């Protein structure tokens, strides 16, 4: 916003041009323009299968290899090997590649680039990193101070989990904001029971449009023309597999933190027979509370998984609906909203993990208020 006035004027004209172009794309105000018309695309909860991206995986694996050689660190090789495995999986094991896996590879690549930039900056000896690595360093410093304030001496153990979850969720959430995500893909025949749309050839690309008025009456013909758009890339957190995996990792690490800090004494939280015979009534209550703790651990998995999934999936649906109601410009405001939702959900996921882990290291007495989360 501190640009020179000239640039701002330029940006204003560009915005106006984009608005006019989008009006011309969707309508025909003066008998001129594409006049695609506005439809509400089909929303599907499970990730859609798409063709595998073998070439892209090869490029990214080569990139990780080059980084590994440049930095003389072995970790890049793991990354490269992982990408190669991902590329090979669909060929040999009948593994169906999905569009959220593509999003996962994109997030990995972004994080790999950031990691490379930061390691390079530190290796070159500059104590004050600049640019994107400086921003990430500031974010990580905030995260570390937060962890240290909550977890004390266990901060060094908890911090990598907190930071990695936050960074991964943040990058994958923001990848939803890239133009083309959720909107560029392959046109496929609609599966049974799904209302499809006709296809219109635009010359450079094809798009789904409302079926012509004549075809609507005849059911059989409309069925023949039913196509749905399967996007190449869909936001990673709209896939339950990702959020459930993260939630499992978080909850398992909470248990690991508890065991590492308290040893086997940690399990008395769940199987509390210590006071059963000394104080008969309260002992039984304590035992039942211990059983409830087990339930609460499982509810944590559900809560983690569905919070992230619900927010991001609802955001995607919201963008679809707004786009189909007001196709011109209105989506921009909701993209802004999604920007903040993605940031907040990333921080909340990481911070809850950190808080649970810190509480697990502190033993009895303080784990009642989070039982309902």
């Amino acid at each position, binding site marked *: 916003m501190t640009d020179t006035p000239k640039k701002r004027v330029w940006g204003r004209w560009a915005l106006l041009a984009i608005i006019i172009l989008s009006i011309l794309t969707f309508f025909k105000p003066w008998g001129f323009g594409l006049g695609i018309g506005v439809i509400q695309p089909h929303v599907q*909860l*499970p*990730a859609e299968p798409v063709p595998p991206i073998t070439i892209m995986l090869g490029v990214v694996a080569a990139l990780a290899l080059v980084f590994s050689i440049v*930095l003389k*660190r072995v*970790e*890049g090789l*793991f*990354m490269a090997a*992982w990408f190669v495995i*991902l590329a090979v*999986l669909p060929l040999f094991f009948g*593994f169906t590649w*999905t569009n959220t*896996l593509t999003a*996962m590879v994109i997030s*990995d690549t972004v*994080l*790999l680039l*950031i*990691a*490379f930039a*930061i*390691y390079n900056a*530190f290796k070159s000896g500059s*104590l004050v990193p600049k640019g994107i690595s400086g921003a*990430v*360093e500031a974010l*990580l*410093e905030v995260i*570390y101070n937060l962890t240290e304030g909550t977890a004390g001496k266990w901060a*060094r153990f908890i*911090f*990598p*989990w907190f*930071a*990695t979850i936050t*960074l*991964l969720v943040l990058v994958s959430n923001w990848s939803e904001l890239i133009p083309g995500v959720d909107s560029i893909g392959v046109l496929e025949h609609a599966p049974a029971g799904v209302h499809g749309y006709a296809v219109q050839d635009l010359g450079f690309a094809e798009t789904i449009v409302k079926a012509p008025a004549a075809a609507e009456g005849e059911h059989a013909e409309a069925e023949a023309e039913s196509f749905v758009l399967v996007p190449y890339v869909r936001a990673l957190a709209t*896939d*339950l*597999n*990702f959020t*459930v*995996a*993260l939630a*499992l*990792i978080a909850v398992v690490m909470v248990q690991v933190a508890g065991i590492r800090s308290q040893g086997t004494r940690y399990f008395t939280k769940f199987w509390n027979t210590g006071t059963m015979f000394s104080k008969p009534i309260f002992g039984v209550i304590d035992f039942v509370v211990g059983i409830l703790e087990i339930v609460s651990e499982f509810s944590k998995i559900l809560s983690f998984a569905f919070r992230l999934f619900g927010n991001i999936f609802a955001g995607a649906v919201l963008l679809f609906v707004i786009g189909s109601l007001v196709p011109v410009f209105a989506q921009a405001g909701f993209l802004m909203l999604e920007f903040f939702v993605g940031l907040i959900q990333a921080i909340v996921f990481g911070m809850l993990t950190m808080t649970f882990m810190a509480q697990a290291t502190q033993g009895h007495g303080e784990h009642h208020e989070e039982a309902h989360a």
Partner: protein
Amino acid sequence: MEKLGLNLGYILVQVFNFAILLIVLIKWVYQPILGLLDKRRATIAQGLEDARIAAEARDNAEQEAAKIKAAAQAEASKVVREATERAEVAVKDVRAAAEAEAAKIREEAKTDAEEERTRILGDLRGQVAALSIAAAQKLVGDALDEKRQHTLLDEFFSGVKSGKVVVLSGSDFKGASAEVVSALPLTSAEQDTVKTDILAKTGAQAVSFRVDPSILGGLVIKVGDKVLDGSVSGKLEGLRSNLR
């Protein structure tokens, strides 16, 4: 599960992906940044320690400085006292010299003024005499010739009659010095006359002359501690007391 899209294979892929990302990020990002944080904290701790040492050193230095300052102040006050005393002596000397000088200058100025006045009054004497004669001639006609009038007037002003001082005739007192006061300055011839007469009669060693117009005419001669009043004003005073 099917409709939710949940699948153990995908979950495992995500878990592996997370693990590998975690390793890369720990090695490439977190360790350097935590190292930097540690270094920064160590630097800050070192800085605080340095600051504490510096503060101690400063406290010591301040005490030292206070001591030095006290000594310096004592020294300074001593020097100032001495200087003040010396200056007072010097001032006294200078003032005395200045006063002497001033007195001398005043004396000279007074003498000059006296001489000047004497000269002016001497000049006046001729004019007064001429005016008086002219006025007297108008009043009494040409009873007296002009030469006679001049002689009379000279006698009136100088109190000297045919080579003798009028007031001295018939008196005999001696003194070491004599002062002669006249209403108008005497001519040098008259002064010589008066001087020789006084020296002869009183045995005085020196004679000084003074002019005081308030006596109107004649002479007042002070010899030692005696005063011979031969002045016109004295005579008028006597006349007044007689008439009363």
